[in-house]
């Protein structure tokens, strides 16, 4: 690997981490679309900043662009507060307007500079290593690396200091307010971090990928864990993995790096969406099938419990009486035998002690919905897991 290749992967990874952190909270606050709005509407800020400083990496430009990001959020909330349109409509009104102002400004004034709409949408990660930061004659690495690195350090610092406040205001804004943690301060703090991160990542990866890097890793992590800290860690891991894997896919296909990284993000989400252990589609379908079988099992056991007469408990009779298809009867019978809940004696089925106890408990639970007593059964049967 050449040093430029390493630098590109490093920049992509840092961008991924810096995006995953605010992204996790945006997803949990159901504000994913706000990141899309910010990433587009900072364009006029970038253009004005560029006219003023003639430098795409100037802190002034980042500040101006971040301010446009905040302005977007304020405008969206203002329009929404009038009660005339809903939030998604407000977002759809604000960001294209701001974005197109930026597009016009570029077309009118910046034809001869390195700032075009393509670069804005898709970024130029491949060129990032060419723009070096040189301090008193010493080359200390690509400018993008330093910019996103600084933003990342600030983001991580803020996350550590205000984790508790972020968590409580995201989960329960009402409680946060009553405890004295102003949800508005935390909200605008998060919006500021999101805007600054977006601007910092913008030059490297473009407007579209910034959104993908904020939302996709967090959405993927959300399917895998029940704990906020782990969700953050998983999101960071998915982001970094996609960044590096995406780079190599691009290298191999000789295609856009930003496009490949975004494709990787989508691909990983798809895999997790299908195969996640408890919330994945396949797990959900399997669970539903098991639950159906278990309901049948319970019906069957209850029938045995309610009928002491042998006639009712003969295998042949059961088949026609409970009125199930052969396959289903067999599945249910096997399940009951496997769990030692029934015994067969000369084709007469009867409940074992365990089966009898299980039936009583299960019926009791279904009637009372008091689930303390079936706690120990939860691990073996899907039926009791809600």
């Amino acid at each position: 690997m050449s040093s430029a290749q390493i630098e590109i992967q490093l920049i992509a990874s840092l961008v991924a981490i810096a995006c995953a952190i605010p992204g996790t909270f945006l997803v949990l606050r159901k504000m994913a679309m706000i990141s899309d709005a910010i990433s587009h509407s900072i364009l006029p800020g970038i253009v004005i900043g560029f006219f003023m400083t003639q430098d795409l990496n100037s802190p002034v430009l980042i500040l101006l662009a971040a301010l446009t990001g905040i302005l977007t959020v304020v405008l969206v909330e203002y329009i929404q507060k009038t009660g005339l349109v809903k939030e998604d409509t407000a977002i759809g009104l604000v960001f294209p307007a701001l974005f197109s102002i930026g597009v016009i400004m570029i077309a009118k004034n910046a034809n001869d500079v390195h700032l075009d709409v393509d670069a804005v949408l898709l970024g130029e990660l491949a060129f990032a290593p060419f723009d070096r930061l040189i301090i008193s004659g010493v080359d200390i690495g690509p400018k993008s690396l330093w910019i996103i690195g600084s933003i990342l350090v600030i983001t991580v610092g803020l996350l550590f200091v205000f984790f508790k406040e972020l968590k409580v205001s995201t989960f329960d804004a009402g409680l946060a307010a009553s405890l004295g943690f102003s949800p508005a301060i935390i909200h605008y703090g998060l919006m500021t971090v999101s805007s600054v991160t977006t601007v910092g990542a913008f030059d490297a990866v473009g407007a579209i990928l910034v959104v993908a890097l904020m939302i996709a890793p967090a959405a993927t992590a959300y399917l895998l864990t029940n704990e906020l800290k782990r969700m953050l860690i998983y999101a960071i891991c998915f982001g970094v993995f996609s960044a590096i894997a995406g780079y190599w896919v691009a290298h191999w296909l000789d295609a856009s790096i930003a496009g490949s990284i975004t494709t990787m993000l989508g691909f990983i989400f798809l895999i997790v969406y299908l195969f996640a252990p408890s919330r994945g589609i396949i797990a959900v379908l399997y669970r539903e099938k098991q639950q159906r079988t278990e309901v049948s099992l319970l019906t069957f056991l209850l029938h045995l419990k309610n009928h002491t007469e042998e006639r009712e408990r003969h295998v042949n009779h059961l088949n026609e009486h409970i009125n199930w298809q052969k396959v289903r009867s067999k599945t249910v019978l096997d399940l009951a035998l496997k769990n030692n809940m029934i015994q067969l004696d000369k084709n007469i089925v009867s409940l074992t002690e365990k089966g009898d106890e299980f039936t009583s408990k299960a019926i009791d639970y279904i009637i009372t919905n008091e689930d303390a007593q079936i706690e120990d059964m939860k691990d073996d049967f899907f039926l009791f897991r809600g």
Partner: protein
Amino acid sequence: MSTQIAVKVDDLTVAYNYKPVLWDIDLEIPEGVLMAIVGPNGAGKSTLIKSILGILKPIAGSVSIYDKPYEDQRQLVAYVPQKGSVDWDFPTTALDVVMMGTYGSLGWIKRPGQKQKKAALEALEKVGMLPFKNRQISQLSGGQQQRIFLARALVQNASIYFMDEPFQGVDATTEIAIINILKELRKAGKTVIVVHHDLQTVPEYFDWVTFLNVKKIATGPVKDIFNDDNLTKTYGINYKVSIQE
């Protein structure tokens, strides 16, 4: 009963987009009562609580908790929002939600430690949810979620408790468990204010009641003012509840 005033509301008016939801409310809640706020939908019951707690900004009027503004008295107040106001799919556990009750006493930046965890576990025990402490909150039943919210308020160890419809969507067992805890709180000298919907249970559960319908209709001891006259004034229809003595 020494009649110290726990909560005092003066000329409170709250409006959403210039439409008043609460109009010129004067209210004094004595210390140590278990009070129901009743009124029809849209009467401003939740709004009243939220304005007292500083979550909503009134356009006029003031609120004091033991003679001081709410901001100075946060530590004395615990709040149980409506269960539906939060996303129960949030990635966190029952214990963690209860721990959030301790955040107020910690203030900004400081993190919860062993002491806070111990308090949270005790509160979970009190509401009978200790076995579920590591359960993800979406996997709790509605009644269990409400108990978790109650535990979160208990851990604040406050003097005044505000609860927004704690009995909404819970089964009879949970309802009795919750009201018993509220009665215990009152016995310990705490003031408990509950937004309540089920008029039939008011005389049984509460000793103080406020009738609210945008304006305050009446407030006082249940035995004195919980009558058809006030109910009719509040609900606008000729209301009859039969209260057997």
